[in-house]
């Protein structure tokens, strides 16, 4: 790939207190952002079992989601051919940060049942020339504060989650899906089901 031509509109001042070796790479771009949001008013219905295993995921686009849930099997799922909601990484990227936000889908207050914990997450999944994706475990970004049973959450309570400095390489040509899912626990050993809205941003360098 050719180097970009660099034209400085204004004089720049650079201060170094040590000599950089030759062929040092200077990263001129601050990186790129990939914003994502599910964009549906009904929320995304997700499920996990009482041990916390996530049963399904939904793919997130920009103001869109795949709407139909995809079953998870050992961290893999197959994208439906009639709803393609992944993209292809167009350069050798390094995933640095994932920031996500989620809220219970309803605009009414929400009190999860006693003995339950709801921990929604966002993650990246990858595939090569296929629509069968595998979730990258290190990208699973859970909310910082779980929705706890017995607690009343006011309407529109937004909970955040983030991971920073992941430094995870994603090679050019890799198919990437942004997924959302649910983990959690239940004292009654029953599966948990709830609908959430998700949005957030990836920062890549």
């Amino acid at each position: 790939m050719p180097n970009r031509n660099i034209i400085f509109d204004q004089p720049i001042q650079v201060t170094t207190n040590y000599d950089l070796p030759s062929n040092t790479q200077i990263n001129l771009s601050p990186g790129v952002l990939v914003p994502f949001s599910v964009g549906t008013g009904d929320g995304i219905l997700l499920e996990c079992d009482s041990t916390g295993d996530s049963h399904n995921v939904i793919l997130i686009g920009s103001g869109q989601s795949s709407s139909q849930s995809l079953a998870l099997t050992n961290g893999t799922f197959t994208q439906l051919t009639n709803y393609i909601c992944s993209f292809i990484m167009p350069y050798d990227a390094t995933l640095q940060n994932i920031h996500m936000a989620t809220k219970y889908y309803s605009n009414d207050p929400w009190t999860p049942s006693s003995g339950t914990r709801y921990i929604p997450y966002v993650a990246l999944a990858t595939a090569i020339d296929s629509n069968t994706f595998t979730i990258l475990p290190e990208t699973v970004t859970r909310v910082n504060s779980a929705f706890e049973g017995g607690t009343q959450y006011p309407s529109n309570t937004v909970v955040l989650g983030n991971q920073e400095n992941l430094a995870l390489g994603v090679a050019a040509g890799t198919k990437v899906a942004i997924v959302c899912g649910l983990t959690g626990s239940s004292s009654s050993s029953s599966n948990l089901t709830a609908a959430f809205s998700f949005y957030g941003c990836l920062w890549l360098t």
Partner: protein
Amino acid sequence: MQKEINKIKLFDEPVTLASRPGMIIPFSQGDVDIEFQYTPNSVILNGTGSANCSIPGFGTSSTSYQLVTGIDSITGNPVRLFFVDTNTNYGFVVAQKYDYANIYMDVTLSQSWTPLEGDFYPYVALAKTESSWNNMYQIIPETVTSVTFTNGVSYPINTVRSNSQVAIPISITKGDRVAVVCGFTTSTDTSSTLAIFNTNLKFSGGIALL
């Protein structure tokens, strides 16, 4: 015009400037089916194919737009144009100047398919508006990136075909309106058998602008 690369005289030895993109455009068609139309003596340049195109978003897609032929005001070469109405405009404005594009694309079959009307070449390309005051987009010819579905071959559902081009020289300036476009060309004139092609092609990919 050849631009001069500024020298950075900070070091005795030359340094390597990393070529990282300023932005990327993720795109995927979602669940939108595009009804590609074919017309005899199509406006498609250098071959036959769909007389329309669509603009994918990220998890959705525009409706289709008719392609017409125009002349590039700078090069004098024929170019493909399409007019985007205001109903489903998935174009956007870029905020910086870019000199190169990387295009990665793939096509998934949502139904099994055996092309019997010649080879099919679904493509993705980058387009930009001709002027600041209208919605006529011009496909940038160098960015057309396609895959091949060969005549007579049976392709099962969920077949994925992919292709890419990197470091394509482009000239996109701050304020230009840009769109990703999808369509297809064919190896032979299919007009007698393929008036409307209700596509089972699902496009996705990513474009980096540098």
